[in-house]
């Protein structure tokens, strides 16, 4: 089961479109919907999709609450893959749950 959760059973949203974020570089066991290849990379929030039950809990038949805000985060392909062969402008959009995101400063 997946699905949109009631806002009153969810973690407050920390991010909004335009925010710079980085994906946690973590490797916990279990059912993780954050692709391995994107962990540790910086991107920009492009859509805040609202709260959804946490799939890491749903996978073990638990309710997945409190729900986690889900975002669509845009990454530059060139930043993700050092050997990327396409255009500099090419991008990659991924849905990532809030607990996998941290604020990224404007530095670097």
């Amino acid at each position, binding site marked *: 089961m997946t699905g949109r959760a009631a806002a009153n059973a969810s973690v407050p949203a920390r991010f909004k479109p335009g925010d710079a974020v980085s994906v946690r570089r973590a490797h916990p066991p279990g059912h993780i*919907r954050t692709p391995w290849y994107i962990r540790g990379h910086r991107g920009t929030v492009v859509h805040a999709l609202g709260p959804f039950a946490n799939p890491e809990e749903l996978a073990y038949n638990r309710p997945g609450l409190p729900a986690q805000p889900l975002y*669509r985060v845009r990454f530059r*392909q060139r930043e993700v893959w050092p050997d990327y062969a*396409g255009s500099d402008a090419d991008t990659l959009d991924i849905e990532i749950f809030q607990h996998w995101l941290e604020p990224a400063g404007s530095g670097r």
Partner: protein
Amino acid sequence: MNDPHDHAHDHDHHDHAHPHRHPPRPDTDDTLGHFQIMEIAVRELLIGKGIVSPDEIQRAIEAMDARGEALGAKIVARAWTDPAFKARLMADGTEAVRDFGVDMGTTRLFVVENTPAVHNVVVCTLCSCYPRMVLGLPPDWYKSRNYRSRAVHEPRAVLQEFGTIVPAEKEVRVHDSTADMRYLVLPERPAGTDGWGADKLATLVSRDAMIGVAFARQP
């Protein structure tokens, strides 16, 4: 390569009186795998306990088989011809496709639009998430490790293998379908279709164009 008679034969069909034998190829459907056995066991238990009936399972299979790319093509063609519908589709795909009797269930439909500046393509690197409610069952290649791993890393090379060459100045945007959204690509409407109705336009919209590995057909 397109000519089946182009490759060298080491036998001559016309001079042989007897048929040549190919080595027998084993059937691939004569043994059940672990998950097939588990599926049958769970299904029989659910029926045995009266939780679902065989009829309900059959109807669910028929409903899945009845959904296909024709439905997605109708949605795209309407978006091309009805600006108000397109605006609703882009703002909230899940709600807009209710017009076509589509219930997205626990997932949500997220429509991404191809433009002169951006070409979108969809993949699910983690498994095989696919907008089944509007496109039916995914093609086998969509579930292959080859597509799933390469579409994010070298999308332009993958697109080229589908015959889809995206100009260098156009952004290729890959969508990795990792969670609750299901993605439908709204292709660019082909030139030379002014005045076409939605039914005729729908014939130009292929499944692959709605995954984003192809463009809409040219009229």
